[in-house]
């Protein structure tokens, strides 16, 4: 056991219950799941199936009602709010459906943001942010203000922001949800390349089947439970 590599994410009997007045809504019901280093997993399922809750839980934005969550081998229940914030800035990268770039702020400064909170000196921030923008193919737009860019370009900047701290896991929550087909394909190609060429572990939440198929493994949720967990055809061929 000690020789085996530590999984990036390990969920054991994870439960999340929301209380609304006197009613209880079970968002996650006894979920067991392991995410190994270098995986590219798509979480699928209809809305209300619990996939967003799972995303927040894995992203350390919310705490489980019951069960254990080990992130890179560490039980996150033992961590306080500041330690969780530090883990988010150093080990996690988020990509959102609506990009969530700071308005009227240059692409470069947006990408620098996680490093600002991680306390990285300005010169290094600049270099790494430029390199990250280069990786996602918008290196020439560093000084563009977010509102002047297309949706696809904004999402690439958001991906650069997610990968710039060299995280252990990138969480992409419906990253193509607001994009047209062509831009969606571009964004997926960037994510695939990051996974294959840079070995980044990626967890993708989507409800679009053709987007999910581009991952190497699909986990399907329904009513807070995992109903299937299978490698994709592409992964099988590879």
């Amino acid at each position: 056991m000690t020789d085996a590599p530590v999984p990036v994410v390990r969920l054991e009997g994870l439960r999340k219950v929301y209380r609304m007045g006197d009613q209880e809504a079970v968002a996650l019901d006894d979920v067991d799941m392991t995410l190994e280093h270098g995986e590219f997993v798509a979480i699928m399922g209809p809305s209300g199936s619990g996939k967003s809750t799972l995303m927040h839980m894995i992203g350390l934005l919310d705490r489980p009602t019951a069960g254990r969550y080990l992130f890179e081998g560490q039980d996150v229940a033992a961590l306080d709010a500041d330690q969780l914030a530090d883990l988010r800035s150093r080990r996690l990268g988020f990509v959102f459906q609506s990009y969530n770039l700071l308005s009227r702020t240059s692409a470069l400064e947006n990408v620098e943001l996680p490093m600002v909170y991680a306390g990285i000196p300005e010169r290094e921030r600049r270099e790494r942010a430029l390199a990250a923008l280069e990786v996602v193919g918008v290196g020439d737009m560093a000084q563009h203000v977010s509102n002047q860019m297309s949706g696809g370009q904004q999402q690439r900047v958001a991906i650069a922001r997610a990968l710039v701290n060299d995280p252990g896991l990138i969480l992409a929550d419906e990253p193509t949800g607001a994009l047209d087909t062509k831009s969606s394909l571009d964004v997926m190609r960037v994510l695939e390349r990051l996974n294959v060429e840079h070995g980044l572990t990626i967890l993708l939440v989507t409800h679009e089947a053709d987007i999910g198929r581009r991952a190497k493994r699909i986990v399907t949720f329904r009513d807070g439970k995992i109903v299937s967990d299978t490698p994709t055809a592409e992964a099988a061929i590879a």
Partner: protein
Amino acid sequence: MTLGTLLRIAWEALVRNRVRSLLTMLGVIIGVAAVVITISIGVGARESIAAQINGLGSNLVVVIPGNVTLNGVRTGTGAASTLTPGDGLAIAKLPHVASVSPAVGLRTQVIAGENNWFTQVAGVAPTFTYIREWALSSGAFFSQTNVSESAKVCVLGQTVVDNLFPKVSPLGKTVLIRNVPFTVIGVLSVRGQSAGGQDQDDTIVIPYTSAMERLTGNTFVSALMVSADDAPYITAVENEITGLLEQRHRIVGNQEDDFSVRSLQDIANAASATAAVMEYLLAGVAAVSLIVGGIGIMNIMLVSVTERTREIGLRIAVGARASAILEQFLIEAVVLSSVGGALGIVIGLIGSGAVAVLGQWPMVVPPLAIVLAFAFSVLIGVFFGYYPASKAARLNPIDALRFE
């Protein structure tokens, strides 16, 4: 996060909403400007009053005749003919009295050659220049010998010189006062207006003996000017004079004094009180507008936190600690209030200058006042910015990221 980065982020957020930021600052701007102007008026007015009081003479106490009642008709202060040069000599022997000068005043027409002029003639002692702290611009003042001899010598004020001797030096020339020829032996330095607005240079000064014997023909003086040897003794000197004169004038029991003793301190106090009322008024305006300004900042910061909910959610998601969010919004409020404070200081300085010109006093703004005003505006930002900032820091990131 370094302070520099925080300040830059705050500054950029404020510049993005330029007009709103400026309007938010308005309360602080007005408040701080009012503080600066208040202090400047207070210091300036006090210095100006002090200068005017000192201009009248050092530690001056004036004794004037009281009122008399003749057949039931009361004449009012100054009408009694009771003060004599002898009273003055007696007062001079009192402790803490530096010097005494009788004063005999009359207003009359004076003639020099083909020019004539209506002016104030004052008969005084040589101690006049000391008591009134009034130097000569040329010539010499008359001596005790001139007084003993009731000499026909005079010293002119500059206004009289301008009107009687517009082109030549008056020294050695003759001035006819009520047809008595007086020789000009000196000219007083220019004094300007008195606190009451009178031209102090419109005067001719002669020995009081000459005035009494040659001009008025009576044995009484209009007033006695007394100089105490130090400011703290003024009240004591006033009381001593009252006691002495009651004794000399044989006033007993509840009989009314036939004289009146006043110090310039009383006048100065009245003037200072006026300035103080103005100061309190402006201080009130300053306090109210600083508080209103602070509430304005709190209001706008709350709006800003709501508007930027998603931004806050994102910052939390990418790893901002709650303390970093708190710092960011607190610093934004402080930048808002301190930029307002700086603008307020600039406007306050301009306002102080304008008020100083109107009030004809020197513009004095103590550096400490500026430092305090600025420090206060920073405190306003911290105090009123804390609640919105802590609200931002407590946001739930999941809700914040979903916020539309």
